[in-house]
């Protein structure tokens, strides 16, 4: 049945239906508008998310690079000081740099060994003792 084959009175029916759709009250139209905007808004996050992925990815990559850089910078300095007692006790002089390196050494090793911690607490005494020996020899 084509449109032209529809009974004539359906034209009037169409007009009446159009009138009823145009006569909707303001509250209903407002709610329709809100529904439409909400439906359209669900598309926006996808696009915005694509924009947000780039800076988020960059920040993440920078943070990762920084973390890896810091880690690499620390490891070579701390590795030779795995045995700080050897450096301090057997060395002829104890300078500030050595002390700093020892202090920035592997804290976990120190914490794991109770003896080392005690030795670190008496470090000033050993340094003074070594200095006295040097003076006596000199």
């Amino acid at each position, binding site marked *: 049945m084509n449109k032209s084959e529809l009974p004539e009175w359906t034209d009037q029916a169409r007009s009446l239906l159009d009138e009823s759709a145009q006569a909707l009250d303001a509250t209903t139209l407002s709610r*329709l508008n809100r529904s439409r905007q909400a439906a359209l808004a669900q598309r926006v996050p996808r696009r915005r998310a694509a924009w947000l992925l780039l800076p988020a990815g960059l920040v993440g990559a920078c943070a990762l690079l920084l973390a890896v850089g810091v880690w690499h910078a620390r490891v070579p300095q701390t590795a030779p000081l795995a045995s700080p007692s050897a450096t301090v006790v057997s060395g002829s002089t104890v300078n500030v740099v050595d002390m700093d390196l020892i202090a920035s050494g592997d804290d976990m090793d120190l914490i794991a060994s109770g003896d080392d911690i005690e030795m670190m607490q008496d470090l000033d005494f050993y340094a003074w003792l070594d200095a006295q020996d040097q003076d006596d020899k000199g």
Partner: protein
Amino acid sequence: MTHTIALTAPATWTPARVEAENTGERTLDQFLKGVERRALRMAELATNNRDEAQDLVQDAMFGFVRHYAAKPAADWAPLFYRVLDSRLNDWHRRRSVRSRWLQVWTRSDDEDDERDEIAQAPDSNDPGPLLRLAGSEAGQALNAALARLPLRQRQAFLLRVWEGFDVAATASTMRCSEGSVKTHLSRALAALRRQLEDHA
């Protein structure tokens, strides 16, 4: 490295593409604005309740935007009404389950399958039932008659007569055969005519 990424990324979102997206959204907004009133009236005729009709239309808008917004704009109307038709069917099904016993008393219109369609065929010389009704009375009578139609007949009538879909588009929207659309429409026209004549 960062510089390279910064230069590469906007290539996927060129100003032309952004503009196309914005234009697409405006077009979609205009489309929905153009169909929302008729969609609401359709849902209201199906549910006889404006609040429920608004909920269904909102669901249909969400479903349409989610699944079909990327389709060519020329296909939007049948696709939107397909989503709405699906929502109306779901609502009708839930309603039927909920009020099965009540529906036994209100389904008299569905029984027109048994009626003689030839005897109900309209006389082409008759000006039609609506012309005998004046102004707002005609609108109210049509509303009442449409509200009494079974869902599928009403949908076939509204899509063919009001939306102006052809039989194929109506069948696609209602997800049934073209023969079913013709049958539903024929029965809808006969039932509406009868009810409007009773009203006149």
